[in-house]
């Protein structure tokens, strides 16, 4: 059968199944505890105690299986050997700490963590500041925001084309090398130069994430009360002073949110490295190394240990997020 027909059929069946579950379970609940007759009051209370769980059941089951159970299972697996049969205690973690590639990944991830959120937020802030002041701001925003829709793999191809390298005597078809040779320099194989190649990979993610930062920050900038700005202008502050001394402090909270959102994305960065260098030339990162360990080298224990490392790095942000959400609710 044509896969797309199969997909549509599944969608229809899935919707029907879902509807049947929600309608059906509610109907059954109302039959068991009818809201009339001698025990109407008690029945309504009981039905109302159970109904939320009927609404939540599918979500809880799926979240449990796909996100909660794997966390605990991974802790267990990280203490098993390659075949998942023998308990090896902390051996995988010992291997990890001694492993050069793991250290390289950790170091690279740290660089990504510092540079990508900072630069994306920085460019996002500039883009927001600029586009809010021009009549064609919405068009400009759309275009800067556009890379957000492009897959990491698509972006990798787009940028690999820009970084393309040919021998010195050939015409350079990569934009970057063409500019370099045009300025009288020698063409370079950019993605093989240690250290700098990391930066060239980060540029791709910065390119994608700037639009996200811009959209959020632009909304925050517009939410700043007009009076604070007017007061500063009356005191003789120039536009730059107003932007950096008055506006930025007022949106500090939003900047933090943008920063942490991009940080989480960076911790999981996989596709870009996988497609551009596959971790060669000193560009390995945790997520790609985890993939390599698990699905190429076939060592689930070590793969789980690396995945847990990512999890541990995410935990501070998780706690911060939960505290913020709780504050908002109370």
């Amino acid at each position: 059968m044509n896969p797309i027909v199969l997909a549509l059929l599944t969608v229809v069946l899935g919707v029907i199944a879902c509807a049947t579950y929600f309608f059906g379970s509610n109907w059954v609940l109302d039959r068991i505890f009818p809201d009339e007759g001698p025990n109407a009051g008690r029945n309504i209370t009981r039905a109302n105690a159970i109904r939320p769980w009927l609404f939540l059941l599918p979500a809880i089951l799926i979240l449990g299986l796909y996100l909660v159970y794997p966390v605990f299972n991974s802790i267990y697996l990280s203490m098993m050997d390659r075949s998942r049969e023998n308990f090896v205690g902390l051996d995988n973690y010992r291997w990890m700490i001694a492993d050069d590639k793991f250290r390289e990944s950790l170091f690279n991830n740290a660089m990504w963590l510092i540079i990508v959120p900072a630069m994306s937020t920085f460019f996002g802030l500039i883009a927001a500041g600029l586009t809010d002041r021009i009549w064609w701001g919405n068009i400009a925003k759309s275009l800067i925001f556009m890379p957000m829709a492009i897959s990491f793999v698509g972006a990798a191809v787009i940028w690999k084309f820009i970084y393309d390298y040919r021998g010195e005597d050939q015409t350079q078809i990569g934009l970057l090398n063409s500019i370099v040779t045009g300025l009288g320099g020698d063409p370079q194989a950019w993605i093989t130069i240690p250290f700098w190649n990391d930066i060239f990979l980060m540029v791709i993610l910065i390119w994608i994430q700037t639009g996200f930062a811009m959209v959020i920050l632009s909304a925050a900038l517009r939410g700043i009360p007009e009076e604070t700005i007017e007061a500063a202008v009356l005191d003789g502050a120039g536009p730059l002073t107003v932007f950096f001394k008055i506006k930025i402090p007022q949106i500090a909270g939003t900047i933090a949110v943008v920063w942490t959102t991009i940080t989480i994305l960076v911790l999981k960065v996989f596709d870009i490295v996988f497609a551009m260098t596959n971790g060669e030339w000193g560009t390995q990162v945790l997520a790609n190394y985890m993939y390599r360990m698990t699905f190429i080298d076939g060592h689930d224990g070590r793969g789980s240990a690396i995945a847990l490392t990512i999890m541990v790095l995410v935990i501070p942000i998780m706690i911060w997020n939960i505290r913020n959400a709780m504050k908002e609710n109370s």
Partner: protein
Amino acid sequence: MDGSAGKSPALIWVVNISAILLVVLWTIPTFGIFVSSLRDRDAISTSGWWTALSASEQSLVARADAPDDAVQVGDAWVISGSVFDGGVAGEVTAFGSRAQDPTSNTPSEPLVLRDDGVLEIAENGDYTITYTAQPEGNRGARIFYTTEVAPEITTENYETVLGSEGVAQSFLNSLTVSIPATIIPILIAAFAAYALAWMEFPGRVLLVAVVVGLLVVPLQLSLIPLLKFYGIVGQAFGVSAKGYVGIWLAHTGFGLPLAIYLLRNYMAGLPREVIESARVDGATDFGIFMRIVLPLSFPALASFAIFQFLWTWNDLLIAKVFLGQSDNQMVLTGRLVELLGSRGGDWEILTTSAFITIIVPLVVFFSMQRYLVRGLLAGSVKGG
């Protein structure tokens, strides 16, 4: 909103020019592959894509008529013709007679050939070789010339890629993954979000905290345990561990925290009076949800749908892990990575395939941008 500051003309110029610079920087990479995907294979590998926008210079070679065919004109023997015979016409900017130095002369300078003939070429490509004595030989002289050729657009790459590289099949596979993986989580999340927003029960606050926490759990953690689980389920039912149902549910699981979070925030912001008065009128929670909350939540549903669609369409990792590598299961991103490995230097294939993979997200993006922005704001600004 541009405040009362910054009205001076100089500043307006600076702002506009900086904005243009930023926009150009951000769009040029994508524009580059789009232009390249419309260029001929040889053109891509011999010149940068930016040259395709203007006329491009090409170095070509033509062979003049044989000396035996020279015609006597007065005292001289002349061979004449056009270098563009049988080719695309253009304008000659330079020519030469030796491969080592193909641009030695410009159209106004005559060139003395090895056999003492004098070669002249006009800008329109007409050439004459003049001899003082009757020349001999049956092989004409080679003329190297440089010409301006107008840009040429071709859709050939798209025909090649869709026809023979398996990209068309992958396109369908990507749709097969994305559509159900977008709709299923919405259904499940909408009910859960309503319960978390408007129903009273013990443990509600804790559940919201769990959902917020799960938002950031790296999905790398789930890959091995789930694959193992799928293996067991597959064996029990005698089906392959890798298949579409598996990936739909995986995407559902990974998208559910965001879906519940976004929808709950939105539903919690609906006016309390509407829901309270419906309760007073005797409507059940189920009725309130179906008839009031769900229709009112349309903007939030649309926001999440766009996120989830873009995310599932653009995903590489989950597809690589939960789907097979055969033609009828490989999605577009996986295909593109594969081509990057196997067709590394064939930029006509790569740029075209890349453009095909990004065209659907771009259409979705530009047509539904409003909802996307709204969703982003709902998902992020709240925390600040």
